């Protein structure tokens, strides 16, 4: 018998009587102002958050990035003077990337996380390999909690998605927090209204 069948048989013989699933609607978490809460939480975990009107985004972003930087932009909605992701090259090519600009599908107020998928950023390494990650979301996509987030995301989505909350970090050396472990050392979120 294959290990697969052996394992499945053993599990079948051992598993207890069927138990029902709990009702998740009984655990809500709401805030008076979800956008304000989102900004507060994300700011405390090492990110810079900027809330601004949509029409000011482009000029603000250009000012923040400055001249002469190595940037990849994955937002199609804005015509920015930066390279688009190139899927024909190896992802390693993007080592030394200064900025990745990536659109978020939604933000979560309770933990400051932003949901991103590879439908938008195309090259999976992009949010991780850059020095500075820029995530852009619309204020109206911000939900209160993770249950609402998964309700909105649904189950049909592409090959890879992630909640990202802040720059990469570690506290493995004597619990001292250091920003910039293996991923971006900085993260800025633009919350557009």
């Amino acid at each position: 018998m294959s290990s697969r069948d052996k394992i499945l048989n053993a599990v079948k013989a051992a598993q207890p009587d069927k138990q029902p699933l709990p009702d998740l609607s009984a655990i809500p978490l709401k805030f008076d102002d979800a956008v304000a809460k989102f900004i507060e939480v994300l700011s405390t975990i090492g990110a810079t958050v900027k809330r601004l009107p949509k029409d000011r985004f482009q000029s603000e972003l250009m000012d923040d990035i400055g001249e002469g930087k190595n940037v990849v932009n994955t937002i199609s909605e804005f015509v920015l003077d930066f390279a688009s992701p190139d899927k024909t090259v190896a992802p390693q090519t993007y080592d030394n990337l200064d900025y990745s600009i990536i659109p978020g599908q939604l933000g979560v107020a309770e933990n400051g996380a932003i949901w991103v998928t590879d439908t938008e950023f195309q090259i999976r390494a992009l949010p991780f390999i850059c020095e500075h990650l820029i995530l852009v979301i619309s204020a109206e996509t911000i939900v209160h909690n993770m249950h609402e987030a998964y309700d909105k995301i649904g189950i049909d989505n592409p090959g890879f998605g992630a909640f990202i909350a802040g720059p990469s970090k570690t506290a493995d050396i004597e619990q001292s927090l250091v920003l910039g472990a293996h991923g971006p050392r900085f993260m800025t979120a633009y919350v557009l209204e």
Partner: protein
Amino acid sequence: MKLISCTRGERLKRTTMAAEHNNNALHNGTGLHSDLARKFNKDEDRVDWHDETLWWIRQKRDKITHGIPNWEALREAGSQIKHHTLSNLNEYLVQFEEQCQKNGVTVHWAADAQEHNEIVLSILKKHSVDKIVKSKSMLTEECHLNDYLQHNGVEVVDTDLGERIVQLAGEPPSHIVLPCIHWKKEEIGELFHQFMGTPKGNADPQFLTHAARLNLREKFLTRKIAMTGVNFAVAETGEMVVCTNEGNADMGAHLADVHIACMGMEKLIAKREHLGVFLRLLTRSATGQPITTYSSHFKKPREGQEMHVVIVDNGRSVQLGRESFRNSLKCIRCGACMNTCPVYRRSGGHSYHNAIAGPIGSILAPNLDMKKYADLPFASTLCGSCSNVCPVKIDIHDQLYKWRQEIVKNGYSPKTKTIAMKAMAFTLSSPTRYQIAGKAGRFVLKNMPFAVNNKFNPWYNEREMPAVPKESFTEWYKKNKGGK
């Protein structure tokens, strides 16, 4: 940068030798928890520091969970979802396999650690790869995968900073979330000086982290195969969720040609919406953060990439059939029970001589080998603090008590040793008792009558630290008094 120049060959050889040495002592179960704890206790300052650091993390956990109004309902939901999944595990495993195959992921089944290791090696061989990166996976620790691969000529680089530190030092992790919690920054500075050529005497965490970042970046860019663990696997979608703060799982998986994810079969949950519950519970319980920086959902390999998942039993189906211990399979490996445990905090993770230390490790280990780990369920005061913080409401201290009975029933526990181990646990659980015992240079029995006074023990004042359960304490006290 110059920092990373090192003659790897020789150092790796040394590391491997050191690792074997330490693993023999720590993992292959020579020595009882009480003996290993006594060893750890030789350096009193370090013990105090270890204790305080973990207690600080426990307090961070309290602070953040008290800010969640429905925390108890959330824990209950987490517990019930796991219960539901375990009660339908056979069906959900089949569903998960189907979904993975639909997603283009190759599924492997491993009955035990040996088979798991062989599967991983066969994938490496198929691709003629002898150097890999690996992000944190307690399962691969449980299976001693690193040793196995090294013996087969494969270089494994652990990429989680804490794991990298203990790997360079030739040790196993001492904590499932904080692998090098027992290391001081000066020692890490020295280690990095030796292995990565950082300036001698530099012990600045920021500087050392940056040095490791540069060193490991080169590995991420050049390794063709990356391994990761799995925090949650979803039957409904076939996706695997991996949570890290460092981004090391993602850096490995997205740059490598082949991604191998390894999971114990209890990692399964039924539906994607259940992730909402577990991602809310996990990091708050683990470190007091609202969520990890990255909660990555791996579903399909990227174009041109190969993705494998190895589903491992290794004793889990046996544990599933043990009614008293079944609940231990709900564990989401947050480490909260370790951070709060008065014995763990003062004896250190290595004293448990098992891949998973602390209260939960003491329940899981005897399932694998009751004789070898017969001491672990006794390394506890049964104070119940672990059960109170556990995000999936595992009745940890009850299970420890049940294991004691099981072990005695099976004849694995000589009585004198049992008492010594319980006494050790009791001493370690109180700084006052610990100091008294230490200063007097002898052991706890003599100090018992006044040491039980709760006012000496600040931990009992904590909200979530209940009094020692009456029954087991009385039983314990009688025995010791009788033995005097």
